[in-house]
């Protein structure tokens, strides 16, 4: 089961370039949505893939839902040949996305992300407007309720900003 603190600290410990997306990002923006995994978009340069592979090995990551007999060697090369991965780890489920539909790769996700300090580290959270684009692009039934809530939050923030500018 998800242990948010340990998962986020793992990324900080290995100094992995990534942006928190998905349900945890929705939560950070004010959504009441409950999630069961941590989703991140990661940078695909060689140095980052090396760090990512080491971090995943340290928590015994295995492909979620894949048959046990499927050969899977967890290293930077494997990560380079794939793009999006879903893992089970000792500290909970972890989804790694090389590209976020509706937004793009890490560089696009990292632009104008919000930086929050938590558990003694600083983490990048996908900007609200981009999170909405990602949820729209995903278009899964389970995303629809959280999408409606995120759009309401964006509207709320916009109205508040306009009100404070009027004062």
């Amino acid at each position, binding site marked *: 089961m998800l242990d948010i603190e340990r998962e986020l600290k793992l990324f900080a410990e290995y100094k992995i370039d990534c942006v928190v997306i998905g349900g945890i990002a929705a939560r950070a923006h004010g959504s009441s949505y*409950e999630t069961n995994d941590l989703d991140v978009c990661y940078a695909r340069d060689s140095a980052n893939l090396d760090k990512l592979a080491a971090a995943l090995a340290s928590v015994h990551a295995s492909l979620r839902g894949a048959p046990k007999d499927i050969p899977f060697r967890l290293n930077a090369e494997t990560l380079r040949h794939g793009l999006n991965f879903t893992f089970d780890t000792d500290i909970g489920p972890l989804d790694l996305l090389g590209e976020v539909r509706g937004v793009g790769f890490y560089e696009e996700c990292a632009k104008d992300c*919000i930086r929050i300090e938590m558990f003694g580290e600083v983490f990048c959270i996908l900007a609200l407007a981009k999170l909405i684009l990602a949820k729209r692009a995903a278009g899964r039934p389970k995303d629809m309720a959280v999408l409606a809530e995120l759009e309401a939050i*964006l509207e709320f923030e916009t*109205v508040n900003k306009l009100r404070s500018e009027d004062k």
Partner: protein
Amino acid sequence: MDKVEYTEAERWLIEPKPGTAAARARDFGVDLSLTVSNLRLTPEERIRQLDKFQSVMRELRKAVVTAKQNAGHRAGTETLR
């Protein structure tokens, strides 16, 4: 329990006007009073709260598994009798 007082800004979400995103979210079944509660927190507090909730759920799940195992054990013992 004290009645929750909403600010004028929060009423935008609690009592949404027709045609707004808030009204669509409400019609979708989103409990916007929970959203307002979350918006009163900082982003850090929101995630910490979720982490705490996940931790409670882990304990709950363990307790349920233990209870089921104990119930199964008792049932087995009773069958043997």
